């Protein structure tokens, strides 16, 4: 249609789309799906890291981790707000998460088993997330773009903190070094999977690219992540658990092995190590908190009635 054409021209000229602008239903839906999925990831992402707050091994690390988990909840908040500008309520999105209908980043279905996992999650998972998110700062939809600018700033801080945990472990006792290597071994492949399947196998990519929602292919970002991370692992004295990993002078980047995509699809289908536990934790929090939400609503109601009576 004419409107669709005009919309595409705006995108192509680099004009930001704002909440009250006309937009195609598909664009709206794609963004709602993507932003809410991103918000849910921040919310569920509190769980694997929150798992170590009470057990962080120093007061300083405890404070840093608390601040990080707080930031994640904050990111969830901005992102829900950005999604709400597209005409969906936070309660609707929450219901979709809790019923299992909405997805969140599969990486959070892996468990954090040792303190080193908190380092690895910051270093690798936040590292991969930033790769994915940096281009989104230039996303065609204004509210999402602005949310991402704020998110990215904090995420790169988190990544540095994660790396610092790894650094301390790698400079520590033999037990600590082994712990760091073990965490890298377990988080490496799931981190590579965070970029999604190869673009040739990815369903939504083409239209999203045209709409200025997606800027790079999954494979480009994965390559960039590997090229950034491998030297860091080297600096730490850790071994990346990929026998096929090798520097390719010609392409100016690393060759590396293929992640186990059957595992990826299993986790996506709900069969990852923690899918059940994550959803159960979120559902419990929501159900146990019903009295709280109802109580605040009842109080607000009372207040309104008092004001109305006062006015009458």
């Amino acid at each position: 249609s004419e409107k669709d054409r005009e919309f595409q021209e705006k995108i192509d000229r680099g004009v930001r789309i704002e909440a009250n602008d006309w937009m195609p239903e598909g664009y709206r839906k794609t963004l709602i799906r993507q932003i809410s999925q991103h918000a849910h990831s921040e919310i569920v992402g509190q769980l694997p890291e929150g798992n170590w707050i009470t057990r962080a091994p120093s007061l300083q690390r405890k404070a840093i981790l608390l601040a990080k988990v707080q930031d994640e909840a904050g990111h969830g908040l901005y992102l829900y707000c950005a999604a709400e500008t597209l005409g969906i309520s936070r309660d609707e999105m929450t219901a979709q998460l809790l019923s299992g209908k909405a997805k969140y980043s599969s990486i959070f279905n892996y468990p954090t088993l040792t303190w080193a996992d908190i380092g690895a999650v910051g270093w690798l998972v936040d590292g991969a997330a930033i790769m994915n998110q940096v281009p989104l700062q230039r996303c065609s939809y204004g509210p999402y773009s602005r949310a991402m600018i704020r998110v990215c700033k904090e995420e790169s801080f988190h990544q540095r903190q994660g790396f610092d945990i790894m650094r301390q472990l790698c400079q520590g006792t033999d037990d600590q070094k082994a712990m760091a290597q073990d965490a890298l071994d377990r988080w490496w492949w799931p981190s590579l999977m965070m970029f999604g399947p190869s673009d040739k196998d990815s369903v939504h990519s083409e239209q999203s690219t045209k709409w200025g929602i997606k800027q790079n292919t999954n494979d480009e970002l994965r390559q960039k992540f590997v090229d950034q991370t491998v030297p860091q692992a080297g600096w730490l004295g850790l071994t990346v658990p990929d026998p096929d990993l090798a520097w390719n002078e010609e392409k100016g980047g690393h060759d590396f092995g293929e992640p186990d995509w059957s595992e990826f699809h299993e986790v996506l289908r709900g069969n990852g190590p923690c899918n059940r536990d994550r959803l159960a934790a979120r559902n419990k929090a929501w159900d146990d908190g019903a009295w709280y939400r109802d109580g605040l609503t009842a109080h607000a109601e009372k207040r309104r009635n008092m004001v109305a009576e006062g006015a009458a």
Partner: protein
Amino acid sequence: MDPLVTFCLRMGDTTLILGQQTAAWCGHAPVLEEDIAFANMGLDLIGQTQLWYEIAAQAEGQGRTPDDLAFFRTERQFLNAQLVERPNVDFAHALMRQYLFDAWHLPIQEALCESGHQAIRELAQKSVKEVRYHIDRSRDLIVRLGDGSEESHAMMQGALDALWPYAADLMAIDAVEQALVGIGMLPPLDRVACAFEAETAVTLDRATLAIPGNGHARTGGRTGIHTETMGYILAEMQQIPRSFPDARW
């Protein structure tokens, strides 16, 4: 033990254990805003803990670090008030515990702003701003949930009934504080209990909550006598440092 060290441990242990309990709600609170608020309060409390432990460690002069104090003492050596170790039964308990703590924490921090000990004075001047923010938030929630639905009222009253007896342990004053008041290191602390009574009387009344009558005072935390929940808190908190005693983190 030097009364100054004891006093700082009483304060720092109390903020640490509450911070630990508060932080456990991250990702499990009834709404996202509470996830954020509880993380934020936890963060402030851990920060205050570090400051108290620094003063304690310095006064003690035995080369122990704040982390040594947090991770390498046993239950009977922890001097926190029993209130803060009471379990996270439900979110009503968490809110009420926080409120009762805040209702004591604000006046004691205000008093400590006039401490004759420079580091304590500076700590208090920094903390008191955080604490004011905490009590504004927790007082508001107590009122709204106490005077909310029938269920929320019942939840908050249940939490108050369970926790009120432990408030006494916050206010407990013994020879340690008296000695420090005597040498001007602490200002007189009687007004703290008065302020606590005034604050809670007004707020709980606005919240339509009844202060339990038979609330016998439970005390002992300040001399290392705890409740049976305390050991489990320490087991979890200290696990990693105790498992790798030679490691730095």
